[in-house]
């Protein structure tokens, strides 16, 4: 009798587990709809046609974030001769691009784009990252373990690592001036510093309207695309350009799916595996050794 009860119990739990996994799956299917970002999120529209490459934004960022002294002065434009990336000492940088057929080069400011669904955030296993309702992607360096997965995950190659720190190396990146400005409804330092309003600060939804408005009024000037409106699920920082985006250093093959979507299906299976597999294989084991157990019982009854 005892053996029968146990078998029934196991069968029941297996069925239950299977049912739970089916229900769990359908729930996850609903959740796989994209988040689309906080409705009240702020953003910045970067208009490449206005930038003259003065690097004021870099200087302002350095001051606001208390970053180390630069290797060269911010008014030294020879740094523009080489394409640069953001680093532990520079959360934003400006690159210059010569455009065939245009008199003037274009300048592109690079910083964290503050994705609606950040790949860095979803890749971080200690949950160091937070997407705030104001739109900023911030992080808690005190919990960062230095695994650098976010650096691999970021489609824009933004997070940098403080390799120079011997004792406590952590991730470093633009935080939209969240602590000192955005939290209080103020624009980031770079926006305030920009003399030509290359950077327009506002609600992300409003910026999309403004961007399309500029394209509509100057169809000959602008590419008919706002980079970041839909890229990788949308970003808080978006760009307008007068040259094709692949000519000014943008990756135009990122698609519109958040990076998370590529791994979400797989990741939902992980907890299922952890909860069901022990019961499942314990069941297999008991079934396989059932005859032996019965023999033992029969023996003892005799």
């Amino acid at each position, binding site marked *: 009798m005892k053996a029968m009860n146990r078998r029934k119990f196991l069968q029941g739990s297996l069925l239950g587990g299977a049912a739970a996994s089916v229900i769990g799956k359908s729930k996850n299917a609903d959740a796989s709809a994209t988040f689309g970002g906080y409705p009240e999120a702020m953003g910045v529209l970067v208009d490449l046609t206005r930038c003259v490459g003065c690097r004021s934004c870099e200087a302002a960022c350095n001051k606001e974030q208390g970053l180390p002294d630069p290797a060269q*002065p911010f008014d030294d434009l020879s740094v523009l001769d080489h394409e640069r990336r953001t680093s532990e000492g520079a959360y934003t940088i400006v690159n210059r691009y010569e455009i065939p057929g245009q008199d003037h080069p274009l300048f592109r400011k690079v910083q964290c784009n503050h994705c609606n669904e950040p790949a860095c955030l979803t890749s971080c296993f200690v949950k160091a990252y937070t997407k705030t309702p104001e739109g900023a992607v911030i992080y808690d360096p005190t919990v960062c373990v230095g695994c650098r997965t976010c650096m691999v995950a970021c489609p824009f190659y933004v997070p940098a690592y403080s390799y120079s720190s011997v004792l406590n190396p952590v991730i470093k990146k633009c935080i939209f001036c969240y602590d000192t400005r955005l939290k209080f409804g103020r624009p980031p330092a770079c926006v305030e510093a920009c003399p030509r309003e290359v950077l327009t600060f506002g609600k992300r939804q409003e910026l999309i309207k403004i961007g399309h408005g500029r394209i509509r009024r100057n169809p000959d000037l602008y590419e008919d695309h706002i980079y970041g409106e839909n890229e990788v699920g949308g970003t808080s920082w978006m760009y307008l350009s007068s040259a094709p985006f692949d000519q000014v250093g943008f990756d135009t093959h990122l698609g519109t799916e958040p990076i998370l979507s590529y791994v979400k299906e797989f990741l939902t299976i992980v907890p299922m595996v952890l909860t069901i597999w022990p019961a499942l294989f314990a069941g297999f084991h008991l079934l396989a050794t059932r005859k032996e157990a019965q023999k033992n019982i029969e023996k003892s009854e005799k």
Partner: protein
Amino acid sequence: MEQIPKYLLRTVMAMLLCFSLSSNIAVAGDGPDEVVIESLATESNCAVCHHHTLGTEIEDENCIRCHAESGATDEISCQECHSSKRFEAEYLNKINEDNTLYHRDRLGLKAAFHTRCMNCHEEMGVPNGCQDCHARTDAGDKFFHSGNYAPPESDKPVSGGH
């Protein structure tokens, strides 16, 4: 120096005074800006090239649709349209709350000046760099880590951090 495009170099450098100015504005209201506005309004060179608020004939077809008969405004003030607080919450909320507003993408005061002046300077082929208009100050040197505040010469490339 020679290989650097001159207009760029100048532009970069001139930003300095801007910064010292903007920090003043944040503390002391619109004082410094008003002075500039007054001087611009009386200077024929800049006043003439400015748009319809000064009575200049409108050329942009899109503007003509509403402003063909607008003429000069009674009071001429850049700040009337170009806010010195373009990105402050109060201004942004005002735009967001008014769905019927057509001019929702107006330049702020600082950018209005810079784009007007610089674009015209470029067309006219006159000096157009930052320091051509703004004398470099000590605060500017500090901000740009230049002059007395310049980092020591180094052959090392800028640290990548990757």
